[in-house]
């Protein structure tokens, strides 16, 4: 066993795992904070919706599509000057978070839009008939009704961010991905590679399980 994992520096692995956790956690938080309002706006301005605004929808939708169509590895590089401007460095855990949010937020926004569209129109109509304002419809009816879908969306986004965060190791992002690239890939330490991949798999499994539990808990259908 010792020989098999001779290159594995466990404290280093622990530190890298923690970094990944922080990167995914922080970028998930900001992706949700930014993506939720964008998703609600996409939904509301869409065709035959409460605040139908074809131009606003087209612009917003275009921006989201652009961010989503750029491969993440390219987005990482394109974002470097902006990241430096924003937080002073493009390296390490902190430097990875802006590109992760730029990738995660539009992704999550689309998932929010989709789950809002799945709310029965009749419920919106009934709430309108009660004299609710648009604000009350959003917070009183739409978001609570779409909550299970939104939680599922957060889970999918979190898992996507795990793989994005690993990718950010390429430009010096820190975390398990960085470890895999520096040791597993560049120094041919296969055992390090295996351990980091195994940890990422476990991480994703746990996220999915927790997400599914939460969805089930909030589903009343």
């Amino acid at each position, binding site marked *: 066993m010792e020989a098999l994992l001779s290159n594995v520096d466990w404290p280093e692995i622990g530190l890298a795992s923690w970094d990944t956790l922080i990167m995914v956690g922080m970028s998930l938080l900001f992706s949700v904070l930014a993506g939720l309002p964008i998703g609600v706006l996409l939904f509301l301005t869409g065709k035959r919706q409460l605040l139908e605004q074809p131009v606003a929808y087209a612009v917003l939708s275009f921006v989201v599509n652009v961010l989503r169509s750029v491969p993440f590895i390219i987005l990482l590089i394109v974002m470097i000057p902006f990241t430096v401007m924003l937080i002073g460095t493009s390296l390490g855990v902190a430097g990875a978070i802006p590109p992760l949010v730029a990738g995660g937020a539009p992704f999550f926004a689309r998932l929010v839009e989709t789950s809002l569209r799945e709310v*029965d129109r*009749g*419920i919106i*109509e*009934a*709430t*309108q*008939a*009660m*004299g*609710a*304002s648009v604000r*009350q419809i959003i917070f*009183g*009816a739409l978001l*609570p*009704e779409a*909550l299970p879908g939104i939680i599922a969306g957060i889970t999918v986004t979190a898992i996507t961010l795990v793989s994005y965060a690993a990718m950010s190791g390429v430009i010096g992002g820190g975390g398990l991905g960085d470890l895999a690239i520096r040791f597993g890939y560049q120094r041919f330490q296969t055992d390090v590679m295996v351990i980091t991949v195994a940890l990422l798999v476990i991480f994703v499994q746990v996220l999915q399980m927790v997400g599914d539990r939460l969805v089930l808990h*909030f589903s*009343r*259908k």
Partner: protein
Amino acid sequence: MIVFNQVQKSYQVGGRAIPALHPTDMTIETGEVFGIVGHSGAGKSTLVRLINLLEPATGGNILIDNENITRYSAAELRAFRRKVGMIFQHFNLLSSKTVADNIAFPMKLAGVYSKTDIRDRVQELLARVSLLDQADKYPSQLSGGQKQRVGIARALACRPTILLCDEATSALDPQTTQSVLRLLAEINKELGLTIVLITHEMDVVRRVCDRVAVMDGGRVVEMGLVSDVFLHPQHPTTRDFVFESESVDSQERQEDMQKANGRILRLTFKGESTYQPLLGSVARASGVDFSILSGRIDHIKDTPYGQLTLSLVGGDLAVAMSALEAADVHVEVLR
């Protein structure tokens, strides 16, 4: 009172205006149960949604208690909608809220009720619709009839003066339909609430409505007291609806009439005359023999009525007819 003054509604489809409701005049009195019947696509959904402006009118004025609601600002419209309850075919309850929270929802939206007010009112309404033991359940745990009762309780929460029912019983089985209709009739009587009810079933109209409008192709083609419209339908669409509700096969009826001898009359009577032993005494007085080809004795809301198709042989027909008319029976000679 709800007054429609040349109200119309059209939709813009590909640059062209497609009419959903042609200019319509209509008055619905305070406290009555007003039915709107029509096939799907006849415009009845549009008509009922004009009353709370879920569908904005494209022409004309809608006056409710002498206020022109078509001129309301957004805030005035929201305040007005709180005084108009609405129930739906598919109930439209919030699946994420319990029964009690669904009923409390419109009161919370209104923002003028205290927590204790809301709690008391919810209890009162739960009792009203016999759902006290279901307060903490979620809509998915209820039957269709129970869901509609929640819908009714929710619609009544802010003490509205008008209740709109959009095909409220169309998704329910006959027995549940009956109990929901009975509940609506009770509410109408006890609270003096004006009820506007749209349906595609004439039977629903017959059971609860005072007056009815029949719609076809975006127009009101017939309007009047349910007993008049039901017993003496004028427009072909109305006739279809009445026959449909009586499940009459017109071909069978023709065959019956061909086999019968003598004159064929249709007698229509309602109210007290339903209970009079009229046919026997008329037959004795005029010497006419009769046989009943078809008939129906039932109720329109609370009024009993009957409609019989008879074939008459021998005796003095003129005497028989005048005796029937004297007894307040409407006589129609079919052959």
